[in-house]
């Protein structure tokens, strides 16, 4: 990848959910410095970009693919904290935090990321405070999202949580197809359970029910929403 093409990526990389961009408001020569400091990192499906508890040494911007951020407890439970899509950052919180990655980052599909070492990123932020400000905005959005998910965990019924999880995935990776809206990356029932904070058993029961009602169709690690409106009424607790 040439420096020019990296610059154009940096200029247009806008996080899909928040609309924030780490490098907005920077001049062309500043983007060029940042582009030259970046390395390209490619991973096949299942590849780990980093592991939980590893020293946090780098900062990633995903260009292509899907990466799941997954945390394990000492008892062996797993929680998917987030699924990263193109133009989203990952690894950044660790690098600013206590120096170790609090979760692992694993590619769900073949993925390409730009990587900066923590030292370089720290120097760039000192030289260009706008980057630090942009990052703060991105972190604020993520915090809001986590607060929303926390509220859902505390207050919502499981069925509603699973519906909301699907809607979040649609916002990030939904694609219109002939029979409905497809979540366009491999997603297992276990993944969904780990995102919605419930068990595989509950997810299977809920998805089977929805499939009978014609809300969704499931296939090999794919979920097709055949009645988007019905899913919204479940997620938002609307009257039908």
């Amino acid at each position, binding site marked *: 990848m040439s420096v020019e093409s990296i610059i154009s990526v940096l200029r247009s990389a806008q996080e899909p959910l928040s609309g924030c961009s780490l490098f907005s408001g920077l001049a062309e020569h500043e983007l060029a410095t940042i582009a030259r400091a970046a390395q390209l990192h490619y991973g096949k499906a299942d590849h780990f970009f980093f592991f939980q508890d590893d020293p946090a040494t780098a900062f990633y911007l995903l260009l292509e693919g899907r990466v799941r951020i997954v945390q394990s407890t000492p008892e062996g439970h797993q929680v998917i904290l987030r699924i990263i899509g193109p133009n989203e950052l990952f690894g950044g919180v660790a690098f600013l935090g206590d120096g170790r990655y609090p979760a692992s980052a694993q590619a769900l599909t073949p993925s390409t990321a730009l990587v900066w070492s923590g030292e370089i990123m720290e120097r760039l932020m000192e030289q260009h405070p706008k980057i630090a400000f942009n990052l703060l905005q991105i972190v604020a959005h993520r915090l809001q999202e986590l607060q929303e998910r926390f509220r859902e965990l505390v207050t919502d019924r499981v069925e509603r949580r699973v519906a909301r999880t699907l*809607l979040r995935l*649609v*916002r990030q990776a*939904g694609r*219109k197809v002939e029979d409905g*809206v497809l979540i366009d990356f491999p997603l297992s029932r276990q993944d969904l359970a780990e995102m919605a904070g419930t068990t595989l058993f509950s997810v299977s029961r809920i998805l089977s029910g929805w499939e009978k009602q014609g809300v969704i169709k499931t296939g090999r690690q794919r979920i097709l929403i055949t009645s*988007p*409106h019905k*899913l*919204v*009424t479940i997620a*938002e607790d*609307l009257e039908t």
Partner: protein
Amino acid sequence: MESVALLQLPVAYVMEQWPQTIPVFMRRRMACVGCVMAQFETVAEVAAIYNLDLPDFLNELHQNILSEKSECSQDQKVE
């Protein structure tokens, strides 16, 4: 704009291009405003979902689109 073209537009697009249509959805207590699925469902599809009287619904959308045409005319790409 022709009714046929309007029927095939995603409702999110309609609300974005002509924000004056938003009250038409709100008045019918439709959940389209701000809904993530609004980018995927067309005017025809939501009319079917909500069992709307189609000519009546289209007519009201048209009226609202035309009512503030001057403000939005620069952005009108769809004929």
